[in-house]
């Protein structure tokens, strides 16, 4: 299999890690925007499981997947693990509409948002 071994994070120049950290605030905002829109679909008249909600859950999954890959790339393994957990939760919610309301991904998303914001200013 091609390149399965993880590169040492030390091999990544510090300037790239610093930019990754700074941009975590943008990632937090993107998560928050998607989560807020998803919560709005659940308080609207639209029935659960509508395409809007499904698309927003998928957007959260995509954001989590992207963060997982980048965080792992730049050596932020705890953040990558958290993003991976959210990716799994949102994938499950994407296939089971009933989980979109009660699934654990909402608090997990909020925790990830906080983690990103903390790292971006630390």
């Amino acid at each position: 299999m091609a390149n399965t071994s993880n590169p040492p994070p030390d091999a990544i120049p510090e300037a790239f890690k610093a930019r990754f950290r700074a941009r975590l605030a943008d990632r937090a905002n993107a998560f928050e925007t998607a989560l807020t829109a998803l919560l709005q679909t659940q308080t609207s008249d639209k029935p659960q499981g509508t395409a809007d909600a499904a698309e927003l859950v998928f957007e959260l999954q995509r954001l989590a997947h992207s963060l997982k890959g980048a965080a792992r790339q730049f050596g932020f393994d705890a953040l990558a693990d958290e993003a991976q957990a959210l990716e799994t939760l949102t994938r499950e919610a994407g296939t089971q509409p009933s989980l979109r309301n009660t699934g654990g991904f909402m608090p997990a998303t909020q925790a990830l948002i906080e983690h990103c914001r903390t790292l971006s200013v630390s």
Partner: protein
Amino acid sequence: MTEALTRIFCVEDDPDIRELLDMSLKDLGGFEVEMAADAEQALRRAPAFKPQIVLLDVMLPNMSGPEALPLLRKALEDPAARIIFLTAKASRSARDEFLSIGADEVFFKPFDAMGLGDQLLEFWARSTNG
């Protein structure tokens, strides 16, 4: 004689990963590199660049890598062009899945930013020499 690998086109939505790819392939590897942030941009811009290798992220906004792959092949009009998926979905089954839908190779994130150029040169030599 095999044409030397010089042109690489990357399709990656994550700005941090794009910057790292740019450093790895352009600054360290010495390749000509173009970037696109999504599949639509890639379909518009890649044909004119005539890439020898396309590094294609899997989970892209609007159109996924697997959806874009056949469109890119058609748009490039170059049977020698190689398309490699670059994905954080690291598993043997994922690799098999992506090869089965037409990828020439699968590279996984996190990738070795210092050695990616060499890995691509090795792949290019292997794939163009049969």
